[in-house]
């Protein structure tokens, strides 16, 4: 079972209380961007077998979007953090690198 602690309400929520929102930290390319950048923004996702930064919504709860770092194969969770961030906080990176020293965001 996959469990995340919602950083907004502090509840350790089960996967069934959450809605998955795909890859985190996407940079939006809108009007005026190149077709290649726009295609990347719309369609191209990482989908790694390994560490992944993701968006999740505490839909059966406080309703807030948050971000999470987890391993897609082992389901190990390295931490959750506020959605109002452009990159993972140092503490999350530290947790990931403790296990995967080579990991790059």
């Amino acid at each position, binding site marked *: 079972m996959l469990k995340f602690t919602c950083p907004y*309400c502090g*509840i350790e929520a*089960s996967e069934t209380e959450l809605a998955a929102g795909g890859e985190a930290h996407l940079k939006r390319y809108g009007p005026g961007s190149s077709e290649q950048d726009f295609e990347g923004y719309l369609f191209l996702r990482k989908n790694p077998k390994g560490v992944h930064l993701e968006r999740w919504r505490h839909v*059966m*709860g*406080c309703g*807030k979007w948050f971000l999470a770092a987890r391993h897609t194969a082992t389901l190990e969770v390295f931490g959750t953090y506020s959605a109002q961030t452009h990159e993972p906080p140092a503490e999350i990176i530290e947790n990931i690198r403790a296990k995967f020293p080579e990991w790059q965001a």
Partner: protein
Amino acid sequence: MSDPRSAVGGAVYEGYVTVKDSGAHGMITLRGDHAELAEAVKAAVGSGMPTQRRIEGGLGGGAAWASPDELLLFCDYADAAGALEKARKSLEGNHFLVADVSDARAVFALEGSGIRDLLAKLCPADLSPEALPHGEFRRSHLGQVAAAFWLESEETATVICFRSVAPYVYDLLSEAVKGGPIGIF
């Protein structure tokens, strides 16, 4: 004024936990910066401000922490319109949202020493006394639908769900009672 009708018409199911339609209750959603809401809560339902995930007071007059920018206020059904106005008046000039959601909700009372056991059958939340102390307002889901609940004691709990799914929640709770206790708490 016409009499309020609850969704499952006062139904009661008795077993190792008694499931009771708790009837019509006043409920008001209040959204805004929690730091600015205390006066409005006091004015509207006479209750103090709840801290994170807690409920202050109860169905007759209370406030539950619903999210970092949302409270659910409780009062008697007949007082909801008045309470809404009081909250609105108190918050004039602030950025807020207040709505009477009384008719959008259904409330059930659970009675019996097996309430943690019963809820654990239907819900992924940790129902241990450490994770869910009395007065902890837990939003989660029961079976397929969103619900919120809290324990007043080890023998009484209140469950809130959307009115549109009230018969489902009542049947779900009653069927789970029928199966008897698991005995994990």
